[in-house]
C-alpha cells in the first residue's frame, strides 16, 4: 500500500481527486482528456495499481468503479494504438529458431553497459528508483495471463513463474530480493514511493505490461513481451552486477542481479519454447501479437533508456 502520486495534468487531477473522494462522494463523469503523455501514463498507472496493491486511504472498491474502468479502457486503447502505430509489423523470422537473434538485432542504448563501466553512485540510485516501479511487482502482471492459455503453454508459464516467486520460498521471491536490495542501499522498498520521479517512458513500460496481462485478447502480446524481457536479462544483469560491485553497492542488491543471470538464462528458453511457441501451435492466429508484444518490450526499454541516459548526460 502506498500514497497516491502527484497529478501531471487535468486528467490525473480529476482521477486522483475522484479516488480521494471515494466512498463518500460518487465518482463524477470524467470529461478531461489527457493533456500530455505524462498525464496519460500516470493516470493509467494509478488505475492499474488499483488491481495490484491499491493505495493508502483509497477505497478498494475503486477498482471496479464503472467510470474509472471506462477511463482505464480509454487510456489503454490510446496506449495500444500508439504502440501499434509505431510497430513495424511481423518480421520475416521463424519464431522458434530465429527469435533470439531477432532480439539481439534490436538496437538501442544499454543502461547496463553504462552502469558497468561509468555510471556514478547517484545515477545508479536514480535508476533503482525508476526500476522499482516494475521490479517491486516483478512477475505479477504475467500471472493474469495464465488462465487464458492452452494447456501446454499454461503449465510452462506456471513453471517459470514459480521460479520468479522463489519456488515457494518467500525469501527467494524476486520482487522481494529487489526490495531487500533497495533497503540495503538506503532506498525505500515500498511499492510506488518513487513514482513521482518516473517519466512517462518508465510508467508506460509498466502500463503496457499490465494492459497485456489484464486483457485476455492480448495474451499473445503478454507472452511475447515476457519472452523478449527474459531474453534481454541475463547478460545485462551480469553487467549491472559488475557495475554495482565497482561502486560498492551492498551484496543484497548485487544478489538480485546475479540471481537473474542464471534464472533468466532458463526463463528465456522456457518463455520462448514452452510458452510462446506452444501457444502459437494451438492458436496460430496469435503469432502476430506474440511478435507485437516482444517488439513493445524492446521498444519501450529503448525509449526509457534514451530518456534516463539523456537525463544523466550519458551518451545514448
Amino acid at each position, binding site marked *: 500500500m502506498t500514497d497516491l502520486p502527484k497529478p501531471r495534468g487535468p486528467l490525473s487531477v480529476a482521477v486522483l481527486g475522484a479516488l480521494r473522494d471515494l466512498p463518500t462522494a460518487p465518482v463524477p463523469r470524467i470529461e478531461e482528456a489527457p493533456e500530455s503523455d505524462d498525464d496519460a501514463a500516470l493516470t493509467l498507472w494509478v488505475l492499474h495499481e488499483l488491481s495490484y496493491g491499491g493505495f493508502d486511504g483509497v477505497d478498494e472498491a475503486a477498482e471496479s468503479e464503472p467510470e474509472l474502468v471506462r477511463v482505464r479502457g480509454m487510456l489503454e486503447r490510446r496506449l495500444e494504438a500508439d504502440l501499434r502505430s509505431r510497430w513495424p509489423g511481423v518480421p520475416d523470422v521463424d519464431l522458434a529458431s530465429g527469435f533470439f537473434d531477432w532480439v539481439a538485432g534490436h538496437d538501442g542504448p544499454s543502461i547496463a553497459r553504462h552502469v558497468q563501466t561509468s555510471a556514478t553512485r547517484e545515477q545508479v540510485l536514480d535508476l533503482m528508483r525508476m526500476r522499482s516501479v516494475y521490479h517491486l511487482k516483478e512477475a505479477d502482471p504475467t500471472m493474469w495471463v495464465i488462465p487464458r492459455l492452452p494447456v501446454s503453454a499454461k503449465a510452462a508459464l506456471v*513453471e517459470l513463474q514459480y*521460479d520468479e516467486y522463489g519456488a515457494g520460498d518467500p525469501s527467494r521471491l524476486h520482487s522481494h530480493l529487489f526490495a531487500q536490495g533497495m533497503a540495503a542501499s538506503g532506498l525505500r522498498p515500498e511499492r510506488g514511493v518513487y513514482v513521482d520521479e518516473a517519466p512517462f517512458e518508465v510508467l508506460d513500460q509498466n502500463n503496457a505490461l499490465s494492459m497485456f496481462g489484464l486483457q485476455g485478447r492480448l495474451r499473445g502480446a503478454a507472452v511475447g513481451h515476457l519472452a523478449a524481457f527474459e531474453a534481454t536479462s541475463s547478460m545485462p544483469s551480469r553487467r549491472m552486477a559488475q557495475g554495482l560491485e565497482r561502486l560498492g553497492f551492498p551484496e543484497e542488491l548485487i544478489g538480485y542481479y546475479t540471481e537473474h543471470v*542464471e*534464472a533468466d538464462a*532458463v526463463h528465456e*528458453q522456457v518463455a520462448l519454447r514452452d510458452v510462446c511457441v506452444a501457444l502459437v501451435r494451438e492458436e496460430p492466429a496469435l503469432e502476430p501479437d506474440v511478435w507485437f508484444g516482444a517488439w513493445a518490450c524492446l521498444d519501450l526499454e529503448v525509449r526509457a533508456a534514451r530518456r534516463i541516459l539523456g537525463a544523466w548526460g550519458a551518451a545514448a
Partner: protein
Amino acid sequence: MTEVAPRPDVELCPGGPMLLRGDHVVVDDEGVRHATKRPVSAVCRCGKSASKPWCDGTHKVLPPKLRP
C-alpha cells in the same frame, strides 16, 4: 481435446543450453560438484559461460557455428 506430451526432464535447446528439471548434482569438467538450485536449471553446452556449469546466455553472442 489436444494431445499433450508429458514434460521432458531434459530438454536440449537448439544453439543453447540443456534444461534440466528437478534436483541434480552436476560434475563439471574439472570434477567440481554443483547442486542445482532451482526447479529448472540451464546447463551450459557452449563452454563459454562465465557461470559454468550453468548457462548465462553467452551462447547468444557466439557466431552460429560455435553454438551447440
